[in-house]
């Protein structure tokens, strides 16, 4: 899919450039964009490295464990099919905690582990209600520290690179709530029964 979108962007751009007679500008834009990718990335290395270091301290100091404890009551309510002492609950909590702290790399293994546990309870080739709920929570996930975007804004000269973070929290919380309502509503619809 992304292949077609990328080709579409370049293809449409070139064709419109022919129509508008702006080939010179396009030619210059290609070279300029490639160079600015380098400048942006070098700026990003500094701030990204800083955040990853801070995140690792948070991780080792037990901030993930603390988040887990806070999240547990909510998780049990959201996944009524999963028994309270089932290891799936732990994996789900670790995945969400890692996502919230912006530890993208750490979140994926926990997410796959959680899926495996949920599949033990499911045993079919169609997704269980818990799996659908888990996926929506993942895709609508609330991120407390969007490190990458703070880094990019900093490297592009934002006066205050983190000024958008509180708004992200509001927006993603709204999304999460709507996503959960949607998934719980949809699981009761007959057309989705296997």
């Amino acid at each position, binding site marked *: *899919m992304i292949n077609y*979108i*990328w080709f579409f*962007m*370049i293809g*449409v*751009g070139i064709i419109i450039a022919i129509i508008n007679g*702006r080939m010179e500008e*396009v030619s210059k*834009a*290609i070279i*300029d*964009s490639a160079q600015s*990718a380098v400048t*942006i990335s070098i700026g990003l*290395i500094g701030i990204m490295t800083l955040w*990853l*270091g*801070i995140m*690792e301290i*948070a*991780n*080792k*100091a037990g*901030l993930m464990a603390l988040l887990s404890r806070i999240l547990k009551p909510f998780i049990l309510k959201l996944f009524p099919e999963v028994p309270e002492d089932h290891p799936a609950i732990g994996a789900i909590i670790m995945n969400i905690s890692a996502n919230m702290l912006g530890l993208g*790399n750490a979140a994926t293994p926990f*997410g796959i582990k959680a*899926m495996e546990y949920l*599949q033990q309870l499911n045993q079919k*080739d*169609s*997704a269980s209600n818990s799996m*659908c709920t*888990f*996926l*929506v929570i993942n*895709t609508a996930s609330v991120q407390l520290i969007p490190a990458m*975007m*703070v880094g*990019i*804004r900093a490297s592009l*000269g934002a006066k*205050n*690179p*983190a000024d*958008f*973070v509180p*708004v*992200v929290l*509001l*927006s*993603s919380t*709204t*999304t*999460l709530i*709507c996503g959960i309502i*949607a*998934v719980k509503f*949809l699981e009761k619809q007959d057309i*989705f029964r296997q």
Partner: protein
Amino acid sequence: MIKIISDWLIPLIIFLIPLFGIIKKVEIYEVFVDGAKDGINIVIKIFPALLAMLVAIGVLRASGAFDLLAKVLMPITVKLGIPAEVLPLAIVRPLSGSGALGITTELIKSHGADSFISRLASVMYGSTETTFYVLAVYFSSVGIKKMRHSVIAGIFADIVAVLASVFYSRLFF
């Protein structure tokens, strides 16, 4: 209020997390250096995707395609309050994280980091996820073939995220 929170946010995190670490007797310096060593690798890993998107958007912008798109979509975007500039971001975000990062970066670069468009794009990027990637990776890892209502719920969440980003950005910026 938002201004105070955002001014204090980074310094506070950089103070509180190591403080928490010291209290918990973590060897914060060593742990910091150990965790930070992946920074360069991550940036190098996303570099080709970032470049691919920046070049594609550079072509679109220089050709005048964005002006055309904005004109064509005006009736819809005005009604929903969505600036035409962020539409490509809303379309690419569920499909490709690095693609969306490239688009956001380009918007920030060409509009200035402190412009409304840039802040809105940052909020939109932060509030959404690579829905289709997550669906594909997580379900294929356990052999799920029928995704049932997860796809529709995921897309719905993406649409809400776009609209909520616009709504809250207008409110606060």
